[in-house]
């Protein structure tokens, strides 16, 4: 299982889903990817079939929810979901009773959360690696 874990952790392709709202978290993530940091091997893709992890940022309304579920269904196993930013973790200020916004947890099984309104770049990358590790362990335990 460690062979699977090592390879999985060293090559992560992420599908960044900016579900709505201000794209501060998505910009923060792309900044984190390009600046000097010790976490390597992460690349961004636009095709769900090539993705290992789904990074959901921003508020999720009804329309985004259907599109995200379609993407998630096309991703091959093992796959991880990361909720980045206050909007996708808890809906932050915008979530009120009448404007039925969803959190990522309502629609997908989440592996890692990154709280805070525009969270820190490095924290985001660490959360991604944590999520991939969790999904690979789930895969490993499924195989044994």
């Amino acid at each position, binding site marked *: 299982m460690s062979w699977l874990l090592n390879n999985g952790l060293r090559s992560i392709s992420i599908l960044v889903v900016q579900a709505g709202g201000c794209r501060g978290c998505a910009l923060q993530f792309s900044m984190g990817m390009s600046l000097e940091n010790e976490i*390597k*091997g992460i690349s961004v893709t636009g095709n769900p079939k090539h993705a290992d992890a789904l990074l959901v940022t921003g508020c999720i309304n009804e329309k985004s929810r259907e599109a995200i579920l379609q993407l998630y269904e096309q991703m091959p196993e093992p796959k991880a979901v990361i909720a980045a930013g206050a909007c996708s973790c808890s809906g932050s200020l915008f979530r009120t009773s009448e404007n039925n916004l969803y959190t990522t947890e309502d629609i997908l099984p989440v592996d890692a959360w990154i709280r805070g309104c525009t969270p820190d770049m490095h924290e985001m990358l660490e959360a991604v690696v944590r999520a991939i590790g969790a999904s690979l362990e789930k895969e490993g335990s499924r195989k044994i």
Partner: protein
Amino acid sequence: MLQSLIWFLVIMIVVPVLYLIENFIRSMMPGYNKSYLLQPIYRLMKLFGKRGMKTNDPAHWFSIVSCWFAICALFFTVRGENILFIFTSLVMMELFILAGSWNAREPFGSMAAQRGIARFFICAFTFMVSAASLYQVTGTLSLKEMMAYSWMHYLLLKLPLAFLAMIVVLLIRGSLLFFDFNITGKALNILDSALYTPYSGWSLGITQITRWVEIGVWLKLISVFLPWKPWFSFTVLAICYLAFLLTDGFIPKARWKKVARNAFLWGGGMSVMNFIWLYLF
């Protein structure tokens, strides 16, 4: 037989190593995504660990057949068979990759397959005319005899433009510099990973291997033109290819129709001029 097996393994190793070096040097530059030295290898291993691909795309079975034809092409190149026969295997490989992405219900896959057909026409025409001029000069079509001929006489003196035309074909197949049809989607473009959109998991891994093997075949085929020893001319060409890979990031991506016209003018034009030149002088 042993020598051809050694060549087979050497090429199977050298091409991925070229891509590793390119990926590593690019990630060292400021502003790029950071990556490990063996990043492409990790990606390949990860892909083979995947399962549960979407079931309504049966086309990813075609990646097996295309990989088979690519390995056959490499095997025949290494044994020095007839170059038209090698090209036939590459045509069959191309057919099944295009069929895979055309069959999937994804419009970008079909669009990339359409561009792939135009690219096929340009590469095939350039190759056929260069093969004809090679035949005029060396009197044979089998790679082994050509190697022997080019070792004694300077092929480049007689076929300079054919050599450049084949370099253009190599660039087209590698989607590099000005001849990138935006099909294999290395740089971010609207078609995402274009031709490989429907493939995922292990079939994507196999198509990646097929691509590397194909580049290996072209490098070995083109190294016939260089007058030095086979292994030396192959290494020189491999280093040239690495240089092309590294400069690729600095060249703006033109529209594929303009690229197709340029490729046909440059590739086809040079090989035709060389062919006519052989007859006049």
